[in-house]
Every structure is written in C-alpha cells, then in structure tokens.
C-alpha cells in the first residue's frame, strides 16, 4: 500500500487508525504498513502524545446557576417577543419613511383648522352688521308706511 504520508489527501487515515475508527480490514492493512514505515511510526507516536496531552486539559465545571440564568433570560426574551408580536402588524407602517412627512402635513392641516374659527366670528360680525342694516331699512319702511297713513300728517301739514 502507498504510505499515507506520501499522499496528503489520505494522510488523515492515520488519525483514524490511531483512533481505531477504521474497519478491521483497513486496520490490518495499515498495521502491516506501519510496521515497516518509520515515518508513519513517528507520526503515530507524536499523534498519540498530542491526544494524551489534550486529554489532560479539563475545563472548570459549569456554574451551578447556569440553568436559572438561562430560564430567566428565556422569560425576558419571551416577554419582549410578546410585545414585539403585538406591535408587529403596525411596526412596518410606523417605520415607513413617509410617516414624518404625513405627520407634518397633518400638523399643518390641523393648525389651519384651528385658525379658521376666527372667520366665523368675522362672519358673525358681518351678519350682525347685516341684521342692523335690515333693521334700519325696516324702520325706514315702517316710518314711510306711518307717514302714508297720516301719523305724521300734522308734521306734514306743518311743512
């Protein structure tokens, strides 16, 4: 068989051999090769040493309050998610860039609407003036009618 170290593509097979992850037939074939290949023997010895060194690296235990912190975080996220879902239908509308423009337009229209009540008051004044003119005209008409009826005859006669 070709030495795995001569074929970089298949060199990883030595890792599997070292880790006993290969099937029986392949294990036997590589064993026969390793017996006569010094390079492979060296690689395997170094690899076993690396794994032995890595085995010694044991991390610290997980904090005892890990689950409690996680559940608290999930609860917070779920609560935040509830409000998000609640406002989800209107959120895209609120985020539209045209909204500030529309709001400004509404503000202008609103201001104009609040200013227009002054016109009716002017109208009322004008109306009042109109009423006064009517009254004057009516009074003049009444005077004319009374004169024709002779109420002011004396005075006419006097004239």
């Amino acid at each position, binding site marked *: 068989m070709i030495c795995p170290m001569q074929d*970089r*593509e298949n*060199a*990883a097979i030595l*890792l599997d051999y070292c880790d006993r992850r290969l099937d029986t037939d392949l294990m036997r074939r590589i064993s026969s090769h390793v017996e006569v290949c010094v390079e492979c023997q060296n*690689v395997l010895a*170094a*690899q076993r*040493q*690396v*794994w032995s*060194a*890595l085995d*010694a*690296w*044991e*991390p*610290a*235990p*997980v*904090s005892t309050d*890990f*689950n409690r*912190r*996680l559940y608290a*975080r*999930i609860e917070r*996220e779920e609560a935040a998610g509830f409000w998000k879902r609640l406002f989800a239908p209107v959120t895209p509308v609120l985020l539209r860039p045209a909204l500030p423009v529309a709001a400004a337009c509404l503000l202008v229209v609103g201001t104009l609407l609040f200013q227009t009540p002054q016109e009716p008051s002017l109208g009322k004044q004008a109306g009042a003036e109109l009423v006064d003119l009517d009254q004057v005209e009516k009074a003049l008409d009444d005077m004319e009618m009374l004169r024709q009826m002779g109420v002011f005859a004396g005075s006419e006669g006097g004239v």
Partner: protein
Amino acid sequence: MAAAIALEHDAELMVRVREGDTASFTQLLERHRTSVVHFLYRMVQNQAVAEELAQEVFLRVYKSRAGYEPSAKFTTWLFRIATHLALNWIRDNKGSLQTQSLDEQILEGAERQVRDRAPSVEQKMVREARMEEIRKAIRLLPAKQRAAVLMHKYEELEYSQIAKVLECSESAVKSLLFRAYETLRARLAHLR
C-alpha cells in the same frame, strides 16, 4: 447503534419542545449543557464568555423550536450554532484570546488540586506550565482548525457532522484536521 438511539432521543425531545413541552427542553439542556460549555471554553478560553455564549446557544435552540425539523442530528445543529457563535466572538475579540486571565488559571489550578490530592508546589507548577503550553498551542490554531480539532477530539463528532457544522466537504475536514494535528504535533513535541 447507541449513538443512533441517542440521536433519535434528542430529536424526539426537540420535537416535544416544539409541541410546547418545556420539560423536554430541560432534559436536552441537562444532556448537552456541559459539552457545549466545555467546547466553547476550549474555543474562547474564557469561562465567563463560554457560559454566556452557551446561554445564547440554548436560547437560540429554544427560540427556533417552532421551525425545528429533525432532518439532521441534533448535536450537529447544536454545535453548528455553538461554533458559529464562537467564531463570531473570536473574530470580534481578536487579541483578547491571546491572554488568559490569571483568575481562570487559578480556578483551573484549584480544580486540579482537589483531584490530585494535594500535589507538591513543584508538581503543580510543572503541570500548570504544561497546561499553558497545551492551551496556547490550541489557541494559536486558526479558528476553523481549532473548532474541527475540538469537535473531533472532545465531542467525538463524525467527519460528516463536522463538515456540516463548518459548511465544507468531508475531505476538506480531513485535510483541515490533519494540518491542525500536524501543527499540534510540532508545537507539543517538546512535552514528550
């Protein structure tokens, strides 16, 4: 066979989580919490960060329960999330990984002291120096190689799983692993 049964059990638990069974989520957490935290610790070499990232992993698992489909092994999915978060953290915190806090080392030392039944000061120093060599050798590996080695060595994931986690082919994983171990063999040769 045992792995296949375990896989089915994990997927089954996750399907139950999808259906609203929070007790199944607790079971999944109990089964995989330690391996996820340890994997992340070896990736970022900081216990507090590792636990924070592990919380994010399980939070994401829980949040994506509604769309879960048992199409791949649960552990592949889990370590894909964990690796993604670790690689992002390493990318965003280049430099902070180079120096491990003294507190971390003291914590690890204290742990070992209990296990070793009070070794001598000299033994402790030699052992700590050796551990630092190993940690350094790992953290000097490119992040993807580091993830591949940790998943292969400690989590015993298959090549196909590592390939899915790292989004590459199986042959690329084998090549990645061989280069990583080649570097480690050279860096740790003096420890023989």
